[in-house]
């Protein structure tokens, strides 16, 4: 069975006019015909099946937006093949556009001076959505994302969080098979981010909308995307389940023990002491098979142990560890 999205050896190169620095350089730039070439995406391949939710992660300039633009038909790959819903996106742009939804985090598609509902009405006309279906979707999504009280308000009067929720609702009104999101939670407050993440996760699970999400925010990935593709310097560096990334990088849990009185130095056999603050001591449990119970029994109940806190590594630490190990490996080779 062919995947919904298939990428093979996709690369994208840009040519830029060479700029020379300084005042004299400015005059030189006037007459030069030299170019520099920038590689934004280098030899990337993956398969995405229908109903998946994939997070596309990487530092700035890693080529995330470029990849999304190629999948949505905005840019043409320099080399390689890309197939979305069985089509080459840039060759069948309009047909492809009908079946996908796109949300750009920092570029709005809403009409600034007009009531929100007007942008939705326009969307319905452009995508030729049957009226009943449109109204049904509108009602359902607006309720879920709490937009109904704002439908008649001018877009310029809405907060950033409200506008982003509106953009997401709009992108789903025509029942797209795939939803592309480019940094959708950027600039949003915690409450708004939470609402957006939960909604997207639900859309994916219950309606089977395939989701491709680029982001910096690892919480987005944790809540929405079981699968993770990581890129760095235009190359693919990881493609797999978030679970397995966690497992592969070990589960160094952090343990904090709080005492009523300072028990003195307290080394443990099953955990490594990382910081000793007297009443509070921090440890690292590196082995997965070590249980909290065994650690506490080693501490014993005559030291005046007052409180215990166990910290699962959060996704940021996991990713950071991944990059650190990768950079260390690169340096060593």
């Amino acid at each position, binding site marked *: 069975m062919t995947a919904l999205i298939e990428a093979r050896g996709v690369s994208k*190169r840009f040519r830029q006019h060479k700029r020379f620095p300084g005042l004299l350089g400015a005059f030189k730039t006037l007459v030069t015909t030299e170019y520099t070439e920038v590689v934004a995406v280098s030899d990337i391949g993956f398969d995405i099946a229908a109903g998946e939710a994939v997070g596309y992660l990487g530092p700035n300039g890693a080529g995330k937006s470029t990849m999304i633009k190629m999948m949505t038909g*905005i840019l043409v790959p320099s080399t390689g093949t890309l197939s979305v819903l069985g089509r080459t996106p840039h060759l069948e742009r309009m*047909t492809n556009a009908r079946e*996908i939804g796109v949300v750009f985090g920092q570029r*709005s598609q809403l*009409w600034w001076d*007009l009531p929100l509902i007007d942008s939705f009405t326009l969307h319905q006309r*452009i995508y030729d959505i049957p009226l009943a279906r449109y109204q049904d979707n509108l009602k359902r999504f607006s309720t879920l994302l709490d937009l109904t009280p704002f439908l008649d308000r001018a877009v310029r009067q809405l907060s950033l969080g409200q506008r982003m929720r509106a953009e997401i609702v709009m992108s789903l009104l025509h029942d797209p098979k795939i939803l592309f999101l480019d940094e959708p939670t950027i600039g949003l407050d915690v409450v708004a981010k939470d609402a957006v993440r939960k909604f997207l996760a639900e859309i994916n699970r219950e309606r089977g909308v395939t989701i491709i999400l680029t982001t910096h925010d690892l919480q987005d990935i944790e809540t929405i995307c079981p699968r993770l593709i990581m890129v760095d310097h235009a190359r693919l560096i990881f493609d797999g389940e978030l679970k397995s990334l966690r497992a592969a990088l070990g589960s160094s849990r952090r343990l904090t023990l709080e005492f009523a009185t300072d028990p003195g130095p307290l080394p443990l056999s099953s955990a490594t002491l990382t910081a000793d603050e007297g009443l509070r001591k921090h440890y690292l449990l590196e082995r997965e098979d070590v249980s909290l119970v065994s650690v506490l029994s080693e501490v014993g109940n005559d030291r005046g142990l007052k409180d215990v806190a166990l910290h699962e590594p959060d996704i940021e630490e996991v990713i950071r560890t991944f990059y650190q190990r990768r950079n260390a490996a690169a340096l060593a080779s």
Partner: protein
Amino acid sequence: MLHHLRVLPLLVQMHIRSQMEYRGAFWLDRLAQILSYGSVFASIAILLARFETLGGWNFPELALLFSFQLLAYSLGAALSFVQLRDLEELVRLGTYDTLLVKPFSPWAYLVFSGLNIGYVGHVILAVALMAWATMAVDFNWSIWSALFFVAALISSTLLTAAIITMIGATALIWVRSNHLFAIFFGFWELTRYPLNIFPSGIQFILITAVPLALTSSVPVGALLGKPIPILGDWAGPVSLIAGPLWVLLAIAHWRYATGKYQGAGG
């Protein structure tokens, strides 16, 4: 195609409603523009009061030329100028991409969602001057000449829109395109005067590369029976064909520019 036609009126209506949010400034701005173009016309009047003819054209004839050019420009620019000038900014901010992910022609969306009613001031002035000039000019109007006049006006409108669209489309290739508009307007100001006063090099450019003479002094000169440099007796037919021809060129250019934007060349 039909699907597009049904959406266009909604786009235009939404844009007009957006503009009317700022109604107060609107008419004042129109008045200011009328005064500005009026002042240029007044300068011509002052000059002609002293010298009586310019390149063999008298004042009523120059008034007809001025108003024809202004009207054709206003109608053509309403369909193109602000929208295509702002394309440079849309590309820079990445907002243009939002047009490419819709199942809709990006050009149509761009042009009709920004259909500029701000030219109504220009149109009012042009029509008023034209009404006076058509009567004041020493010319025997007939059905044929009137038809030619209207057809030339339509062709000139199309030509103006086509040229502006092509200039703006370079934003898809070069990212910065507004300097080309500076050239355009420089030439445009020239074409409110009869073509024969310019050196032949400029005459040639104004008929071919930046054919703005075909939106003003060539059709009006042909109508009034003035000798037209380079084109001679072909002036009339050329003026009528130029509009549709350049529209075809603009369409091809837009396709090319879009291809470049998408990096189809690699």
